[in-house]
C-alpha cells in the first residue's frame, strides 16, 4: 500500500521505534522565542546539559515585544527581563538569534519561511501552536510545550506517537472576493473547533494547488484551530519557485539534490487516509467570527445565530459566547460596529496580505471612532511594504504603521483591545480575553479588516472593489 505525505516524512525521521513506546523522531529545525523557552534553558542548566545542535536552532523575539519605538529599551520590566534572558540563553548556548535590532527579526512563523529556512520534507517544531504554518511547504511542523522544547534542545529529537491522517479535498474554485482566510474559517465553521484533534491534515485539491505560498501558510496556520497536530500541503512548482534564491535555500548542485528529494514528497495514489472529507470551495463567502472560538463563524450576509436554533451540542457554548461578545441573536453581521482593527499576526501579516489590505484602504479614510493598526509580520515584510509605498497608503488612510511582532494578536505588549471593545482582527484566535480582558474579537481576512476599518462596521468586501478597479486614482 502507498504512503501518505505524513508517513513519508515521519519515516525519514525515525531514529528508533520500540514496542509500546512512542517513536523517537529527529527534528530538522527548532524555532525558539522568548515566551516558551526560558524554563527549558533553565532545565538544561540545572542538569548541566548542552544544546545538541545549535546549528539547527533559530531564535527570535516576537510575542512580548513592543511594536512602537525600537530604539528605546523595552519598557515593561518583566518583558524586558524575558527578552534579555533569551539573549543570554542564545549567547551561552551558541544559538543564532534575530533580536530586536536585526533586519531579520519578526514573528517566528513569518521569518523562517521568508528566509528559506523552512523547506519541504523537514520536521519543524517550536514552542508555539501555530508552528503548523510551516506545513504549507510540505514540512511536518507542530507546536510543542516547554518540556518538549527542552527535550529537543538537549537531544534534537522528540518522542512521538503516530497521528491519524485526514485528507481534506477541496473542490471547485474560490469565488471572487474570497480569500484563503475565508476558506479555512469556512472549513472550521463547518466541521468544528475540535474536529481534527489527533489528526495530521493534508489539504488537497485544485483550490490548494492554485494558492500562493503565502495563502497556503494562512490555511496551514489555522489547522491547530481545528485541533489538528499539523497541516500539510504537498510541495509543487509554487513551493520550489518561492524557495529558489532565498537566503538559506540550497543553491547549485545542492538545489538539484534537494529538488530531487522534494519531488518525492506527495501522498501516493493508493495511500489510505484514516479519514477523507470533501469541501466545496464554491460556496465560500467572506467570513466573520461571531463567537469565542474560530468555529463560531458566519458568512458576511448572514445574521448572528439564535442559539435555540443550533444543534443541541452547540447551544450552550453559543449562548455563553454571545453573552461575552455582547451580540443579540439575529443581528445582521454587517450591522456589527467595531472599535479597533488589527491587521497582522502569523496568519495574515505577509506582504500579499498587506498589499490586499492596502488596495482596499487606498484613497479612503478609517472611520472616525475606529483605531486601526497594521503590524507587519517581519522587518523584511515591513521593508518590502515601505519600498512599495504601502505604509504611506495606510498612514494616509489613518492606520498606524508599526514594527514587526505578534502585537495585538495576543496583546502581551501594550497593543490591547479594551474591555468590551470590538476588534476586527486578521489573527487566528477569538478566545475570551485573547486580545485583552473582556475584549471582543472578530476574525476576518485582511481585506475584510481594512474595509471594516473604513466603514466602522463589517461590510461585504465583494461589493468594495479596490479603488483602481473603480477607476479612481489617488
Amino acid at each position: 500500500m502507498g504512503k501518505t505525505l505524513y508517513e513519508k516524512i515521519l519515516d525519514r525521521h525515525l531514529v528508533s521505534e520500540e514496542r509500546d513506546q512512542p517513536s523517537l523522531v529527529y527534528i530538522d529545525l527548532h524555532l525558539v522565542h522568548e515566551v516558551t523557552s526560558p524554563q527549558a534553558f533553565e532545565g538544561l542548566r540545572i542538569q548541566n546539559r548542552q544544546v545538541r545542535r545549535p546549528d539547527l536552532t533559530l531564535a527570535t523575539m516576537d510575542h512580548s515585544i513592543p511594536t512602537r519605538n525600537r530604539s528605546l529599551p523595552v519598557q515593561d520590566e518583566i518583558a524586558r527581563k524575558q527578552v534579555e534572558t533569551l539573549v543570554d540563553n542564545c549567547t551561552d548556548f551558541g544559538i543564532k538569534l534575530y533580536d530586536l535590532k536585526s533586519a531579520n527579526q519578526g514573528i517566528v512563523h513569518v521569518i523562517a519561511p521568508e528566509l528559506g529556512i523552512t523547506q519541504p520534507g523537514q520536521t519543524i517544531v517550536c514552542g508555539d501552536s501555530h508552528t503548523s504554518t510551516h506545513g504549507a511547504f510540505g514540512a511536518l511542523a507542530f507546536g510543542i510545550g516547554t518540556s518538549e522544547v527542552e527535550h529537543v534542545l538537549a537531544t534534537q529529537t522528540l518522542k512521538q506517537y503516530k497521528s491519524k491522517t485526514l485528507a481534506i479535498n477541496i473542490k471547485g474554485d474560490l469565488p471572487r472576493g474570497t480569500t484563503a482566510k475565508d476558506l479555512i474559517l469556512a472549513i472550521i465553521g463547518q466541521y468544528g473547533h475540535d474536529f481534527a484533534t489527533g489528526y495530521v491534515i493534508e489539504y488537497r485539491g485544485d483550490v490548494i494547488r492554485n494558492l500562493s505560498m503565502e495563502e497556503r501558510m494562512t490555511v496551514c496556520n489555522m489547522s491547530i484551530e481545528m485541533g489538528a497536530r499539523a497541516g500539510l500541503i504537498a510541495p509543487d512548482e509554487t513551493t520550489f519557485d518561492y524557495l529558489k534564491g532565498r537566503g538559506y535555500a540550497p543553491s547549485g548542485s545542492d538545489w538539484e539534490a534537494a529538488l530531487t528529494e522534494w519531488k518525492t514528497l506527495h501522498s501516493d495514489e493508493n495511500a489510505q487516509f484514516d479519514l477523507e472529507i470533501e469541501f466545496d470551495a464554491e460556496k465560500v463567502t467572506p467570513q466573520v467570527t461571531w463567537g469565542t472560538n474560530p468555529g463560531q463563524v458566519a458568512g458576511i450576509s448572514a445574521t448572528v445565530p439564535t442559539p435555540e436554533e443550533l444543534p443541541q451540542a452547540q447551544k450552550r457554548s453559543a449562548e455563553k459566547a454571545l453573552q461575552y461578545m455582547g451580540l443579540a441573536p439575529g443581528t445582521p453581521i454587517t450591522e456589527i460596529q467595531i472599535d479597533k482593527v488589527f491587521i497582522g499576526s502569523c496568519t495574515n501579516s505577509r506582504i500579499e496580505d498587506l498589499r490586499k489590505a492596502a488596495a482596499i484602504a487606498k484613497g479612503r479614510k478609517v472611520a472616525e471612532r475606529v483605531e486601526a493598526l497594521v503590524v507587519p509580520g517581519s522587518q523584511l515584510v515591513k521593508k518590502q511594504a515601505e519600498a512599495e509605498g504601502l505604509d504611506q497608503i495606510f498612514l494616509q488612510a489613518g492606520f498606524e504603521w508599526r514594527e514587526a511582532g505578534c502585537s495585538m494578536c495576543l496583546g502581551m505588549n501594550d497593543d490591547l483591545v479594551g474591555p468590551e471593545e470590538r476588534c476586527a482582527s486578521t489573527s487566528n484566535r477569538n478566545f475570551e480575553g485573547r486580545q485583552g480582558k473582556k475584549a471582543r474579537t472578530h476574525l476576518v481576512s485582511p481585506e475584510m479588516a481594512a474595509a471594516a476599518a473604513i466603514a466602522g462596521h463589517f461590510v461585504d468586501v465583494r461589493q468594495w472593489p479596490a479603488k483602481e478597479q473603480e477607476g479612481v486614482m489617488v
Partner: protein
Amino acid sequence: MQSFKKVTGVAAPLDAANIDTDAIIPKQFLKRIERTGFGQFLFYDWRYEDGKEKPDFVLNMEPFRNAPILLARKNFGCGSSREHAPWALSEFGIRVILAPSFADIFHNNCFKNGILPIVLPEDVIQFLFDQAEAQPGLKLTVDLESQTVKGHDGFEAVFEIAPYRKQLLLEGLDEIGATLRAEEKITAFEGSHKVFYPALATANSVDSNS
C-alpha cells in the same frame, strides 16, 4: 518530575466546553521566566474581578477550593501550546482532569507535569457533573495502577492510557535523561541524514544578503 499513583478528593465541575489555555492562564502572566508562581493566576479572569475573588466561580467555592480533580467538558486545553497552563493547574493542586476529550498539545503537556488527563465517555462525564451538582462534597478516587476512577454508590470507570505514559507518570521519569542514554542511535541517524540549509549558528554571511 512529580510521580503519580493514586489521588482521592472532590472533583470541581467546570461546566464549559472548549476551555482554552488563554483562559487557564491569561497571557499577561506568561512573562515570567520561572516554572513556578503561576498557580495564583490560574483562571485569573474567571476567578477574580478587580483583584477580588468572584464568589460564583467554582474554584472559589467550598468544597472545591482545594479540589485535586477537575471535571471538564470536551476539548479541554485547546489553543496555545503554553505549558504555563499545566504549571498553573499543578501548582493550584490539580492532579487529575476528567473530560470527554482534550486538545493534543495540552494533553501531552500534562504528562510532563505529573497531571493525569483522563478521557471518559460523554455520558459518564455527564453523570459525574450531575452528581457533583446534587452532592457537591462527593469524592472520587483515581488509581493509575488499576486505571480506574471510583466514586459513590459503586461508581467505577476504567480509563485507557498508553503504557509508556503510564510508566512516565508512575515513575516520574526523566525523559530527556532516558533519551540521552540512547544517544548513539541519534548520532548514527545524524550520520546519514541531511538538511538543505546552512548551519544557523554561523550563518552570518547569509544574513547580510537577505
